[in-house]
């Protein structure tokens, strides 16, 4: 897998607070192939959005501290870049689409000025050139009647149109990587489908690699090539999307899949299946496997932290169920 746009090794993010440090991301490693859509899925608080912020260099300072053995963006090491270097990267090489299209546009500035701002920042283009380019982008992301929408203010656009505008803003400098943080969560279902289709089309046409952050396995199934399942700041399962749905290996992934309601099953009077308990407080993690307190298949050995165990075909799971027999007794190798 040499052709990776992004290759993350050992990404760890800690916050120092009043009562010591809290590790919100623990040793994440994953790749994003060129032109691929990679999903990050997990419950609220599992560290999905924090991963995005860490990659963008947007973790609040000075409380947050991001370290990594290596982050390669298209072959260039970016984990040692300072604030100025990261700023030059943001919007040009890595762009982000946020969850809330209703609030991610400045209410007092015209849409075209905001969508075109990365061009002014990174390429120093003049207003006329920016305006022409924004118009092109509006057409590309399928904003109807794009010419008159240029001078609209955010409140004059619907949520779906705003998210299209945000996607236009993200792609306007033709970034290598687009991080979409729950881009459709705030939209209604039909708009959701349109936005997802748009993103997939843009990937096919422009070839931008996408990290898709979501808690919705339906979106993962529809959009992604590969999936990283996150739990309490760790990646617990990593697989090709077909593999993941075919043979989910981590009990957490199985739990997530089981809690998707199915239209075919009769469900009169029965509760929806769900994973008992809640995501643990990161300051008070259980010993060993972080999922073990909620896990139906927990064993005594789960008091020790499991490693990522490799199954067939690059499928990886952080669970003792899959650890190779010889590593089981003392599986605490780093």
């Amino acid at each position, binding site marked *: 897998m040499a052709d990776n746009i992004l290759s993350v090794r050992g990404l760890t993010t800690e916050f120092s607070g009043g009562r010591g440090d809290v590790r919100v991301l623990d040793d994440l490693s994953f790749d994003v192939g060129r032109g691929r859509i990679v999903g990050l899925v997990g419950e609220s608080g599992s560290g999905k959005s924090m991963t995005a912020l860490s990659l963008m260099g*947007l973790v609040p300072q000075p409380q947050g501290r991001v370290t990594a053995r290596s982050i390669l963006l298209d072959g260039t090491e970016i984990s040692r870049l300072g604030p100025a270097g990261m700023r030059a990267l943001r*919007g040009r090489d890595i*762009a982000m689409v946020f969850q809330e299209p209703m609030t*991610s546009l400045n209410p*007092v500035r015209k849409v075209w000025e905001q969508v075109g701002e*990365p061009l002014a*920042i990174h390429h120093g283009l003049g207003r006329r050139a920016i305006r022409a380019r924004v118009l092109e982008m509006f057409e590309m992301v399928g904003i109807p009647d794009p010419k008159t929408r240029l*001078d609209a203010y955010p409140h*004059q656009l619907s949520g779906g149109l705003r998210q299209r505008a945000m996607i236009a803003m993200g792609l306007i400098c033709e970034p290598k990587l687009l991080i979409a943080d729950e881009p459709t969560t705030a939209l209604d279902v039909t708009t959701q489908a349109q936005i997802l289709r748009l993103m997939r089309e843009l990937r096919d046409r422009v070839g931008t690699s996408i990290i898709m952050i979501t808690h919705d396995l339906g979106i993962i199934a529809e959009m992604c090539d590969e999936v990283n399942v996150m739990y309490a700041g760790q990646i617990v399962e990593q697989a090709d999307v077909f593999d993941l749905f075919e043979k989910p290996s981590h009990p957490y992934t199985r739990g997530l899949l089981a809690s998707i309601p199915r239209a075919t099953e009769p469900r009169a009077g029965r509760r929806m299946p769900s994973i008992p308990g809640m995501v643990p407080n990161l300051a008070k993690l259980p010993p060993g496997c972080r999922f073990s307190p909620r896990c139906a298949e927990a064993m005594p050995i789960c008091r020790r932290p499991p490693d990522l165990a490799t199954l067939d075909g690059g499928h990886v799971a952080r669970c003792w169920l899959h650890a190779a027999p010889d590593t089981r007794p003392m599986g605490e190798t780093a």
Partner: protein
Amino acid sequence: MTHTSDLAPDLPPDLAPAHEALEEASFLRDTVRAFRRNRMAMVGLAFVVALVVCAVFAPWISPHDPYRVALDEQLLGPSRTYWLGTDNFGRDVLTRILYGARISLVVGIVPSLISLAIGAVMGILSGYLGGRTDFVVMRLADMMIAFPSLLLAMVVMYTLGANLLNIFLALALVGWASVARVVRSQTLALREKEFIEAARANGTSRSRIMFGHIFPNVIPTLIVLFSLSIPEAIMWESSLSFLGVGVQPPEASWGLLVAKGKEYMFQAPTVAIAPGIAILLTVLAFNFIGDGLRDALDPSMKD
């Protein structure tokens, strides 16, 4: 709500000529259009314009000499010669008001603008950068607010001398701190908004975020503060004048006219009341303008 361009009001988009879309609908033109629809604001603007004209052309349009003393015509009531009566030196009150408008308008507007400019910059820097900058700026503002401001202004006037420029300086020194506080608190709220995060995700620099993204959101507040601070500045000027460190007689400012005229309240009420009404109307006019501007600058109030 759909937005239709004024360039091609009824044409379907495909029929509108392409170059028109690249013509930017100017923010200024939009704002002016919205402002002109506000009748009260237009009345206020007309009043202020008329006042400015009167002040500028006071020597030509005023019926009498503002400094001519006529001791046989003291404290007359309104008449055909003296429309608003005369003061204790027999000077025409209307003439004095027209001349007073020159000083009062300038004293009302210029120091307000200075303290708004300083306060806005300080407030945004303090609120957005936080940390040490915030600490230093806010302690400075605290000092300004804690110190008796009349005393501070008087000290400035005494040491630097009583002239118009020093009045500006004294009033700006007193006024910026409260503006900075309001702007800072707004900035603190704005910096947590998603659109600021989105701007940072675009690689926007800190100064561009502060003055390109946060500042436009603060403008409506600044306008309200501006229309409130004009009457305040006029009052301040009159306090200073009253205490003898502001405008010096026989120059006339409205505050001074009210202060001097109130001694003759019972013999000739117009001497104090007429400039008082002038202050009232001017303040009202500026408030209407301020309201109109605030609405015109708020994109969600347009269309």
